[in-house]
């Protein structure tokens, strides 16, 4: 019954060309509310480009992106984030020189109602909002085990903690859909396993829908309900972990073709 349910995110035959290169071709994915869906594929398959299209960094050459029943194609990243789509980046993009606390506070800014004068002159409305923001950030910091790093510069944190901070920051924007771009990159198996639990935990707690790109197959296979496999911009397979694992095209994309076959 997947056809009649209303997906939270849907891309309809999205294509993007950079000059002569078609980075993503006719990508049609559906992510239903409450699902964890993975986007996998070899390097250069167009996964991050797909993320960039969904989050508004690039406008697609062709096709549509539908989020929560609304056409968000061509909207700017900040508008899309405000609608409830948050993301992390493949090569961590924290505000490096700012503290952990500031990093998360910045992500609360989009929900601020007061204008600049109200904020600068500390009107009661702004004070109340600031207080709420601080409480929210405090909660997130506790939950993500960042308390001891609270006042540290983001760039001084250990790598794994930076990854966690990035997810905390994304959650501070109050998303419904969370896009994780290789959250386990550079992590060892134990850390990856922890992350797997962690993603499940925050998904349940914050009632999230998750779309993730990942190379760690154990994480992908364990966590995701459905998987899309990209190669050279084409969707070569989709389905559950098992279906995808046994798909000859996927094996071919990852391992190459047997000679003489």
């Amino acid at each position, binding site marked *: 019954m997947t056809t009649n349910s209303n997906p939270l995110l849907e891309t309809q035959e999205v294509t993007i060309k950079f000059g002569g290169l078609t980075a993503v071709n006719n990508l049609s994915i559906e992510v239903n509310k409450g699902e964890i869906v993975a986007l996998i594929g070899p390097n250069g398959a167009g996964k991050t480009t797909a993320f960039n299209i969904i989050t508004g960094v690039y406008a697609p050459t062709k096709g549509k992106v539908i989020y929560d029943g609304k056409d968000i194609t061509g909207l700017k990243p*900040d508008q899309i*984030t405000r609608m409830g789509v948050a993301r992390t980046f493949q090569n961590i*993009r924290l*505000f490096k020189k700012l503290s952990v606390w500031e990093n998360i*506070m910045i992500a609360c800014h989009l929900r601020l109602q007061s204008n600049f004068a109200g*904020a600068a002159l500390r009107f009661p409305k702004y004070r109340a909002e*600031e207080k709420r923001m601080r409480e929210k950030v405090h909660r997130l910091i506790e939950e993500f085990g960042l308390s001891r790093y609270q006042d540290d510069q983001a760039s001084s944190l250990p790598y794994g903690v930076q990854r966690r901070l990035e997810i905390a920051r994304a959650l501070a924007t109050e998303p419904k859909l969370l896009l994780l771009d290789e959250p386990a990159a550079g992590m060892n198996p134990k850390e990856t396993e922890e992350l797997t639990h962690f993603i499940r935990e925050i998904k349940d707690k914050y009632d999230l829908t998750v779309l993730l790109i990942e190379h760690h197959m154990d994480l992908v296979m364990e966590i995701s309900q459905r998987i899309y496999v990209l190669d050279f911009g084409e969707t070569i397979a989709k389905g559950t972990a098992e279906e995808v694992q046994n798909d000859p095209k996927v094996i071919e994309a990852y391992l190459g073709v047997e000679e003489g076959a």
Partner: protein
Amino acid sequence: MKKEDKILSIILIAGLFVFIAVADKFFNLYVQRVLNLCAIYTILALSMNLINGFTGLFSLGHAGFMAIGAYMVGIFTVPVEIRPMVYFMKPMHPAIADIEMPFIVALILGGLLSAFIAFLIGAPVLRLRDDYLAIATLGFSEIIRIVITNAQSITNGSLGIKNIPPVANIWWIYITMIISIAFIVLLINSSYGRAFKAIREDEIAAEAMGINLFKHKMMSFMIGAFFAGIGGGLYAALLGTVDPKNFLFVLTYNFLLIIVLGGMGSVSGTIISAYVVTAGQEWLRFLDEPLSIGGIAIPLFRPGFRMVIFSLLLMIIVLFYRDGLMGTREINWEMIKNFGKRFKLRRVKSGEVQ
């Protein structure tokens, strides 16, 4: 702790008022003039630091915004009776010839007009980044100056406006400075200030966090221009005259020197450096005069040598202290208290204090 800091800040401001009262009564006019210039440069440099240091927009249009504020005060505070004497080449345009405003109104309108012009310039220009933005804003600053030079029936052209009532005394200037610093500090420490810093750190991440880049850049640019206009208005009412040549782009470099020296993104650094640079330029005036020691004329000392020294200073700072005096840090009460404690500790260790 916070309450204690508040009390300390109030004491500091009260102390400043006492100082102004003393300066007003007992200091000679030259020293007062230098102190006033320092304060005006603080406002100008701080507003430029808001744009350049806190929001990361490399804008070089500050002299233009300052000119708008200065001319607003110049045009509308000169008494109507003496205007024919000021505008002796070409009479003032009849539409504005009879409009005279109190200083405070002209000052604020100057700031607002400056912010409005910043809005017009910013709409196309803030889409650019880094050096492209610098070139474009520099160009617009020159356009403002050239428009002023040629709008003779309004601005008296290259003759400039003389006989501006010099109402900006030390009280006016210091109170305006305190208000400006307070507003900018509060803004920077608010959620908007954090958004500005986010844009400075990483535009792509800031946008992904839901910050509307254009809106926030524009906001910072306009607020910066507003205070530049205010600074310009005070400048006009301090000197009693404005002239397009006052606002050559060299002036912008002066502010740039101040903020680079003090630290891009530091309020306290900017204030310290505005005083050091402005007062330094006065005290180094002897470099511009011929000097002879024991009857031998030192060949380097001639008009302009002062600026050579300043350029060298800037070069040394850029080469060896890239973050300036303060970097992005601030002096706060915490720091001063810690410093006091450390000092005390050292004295205890060396046995001076039991």
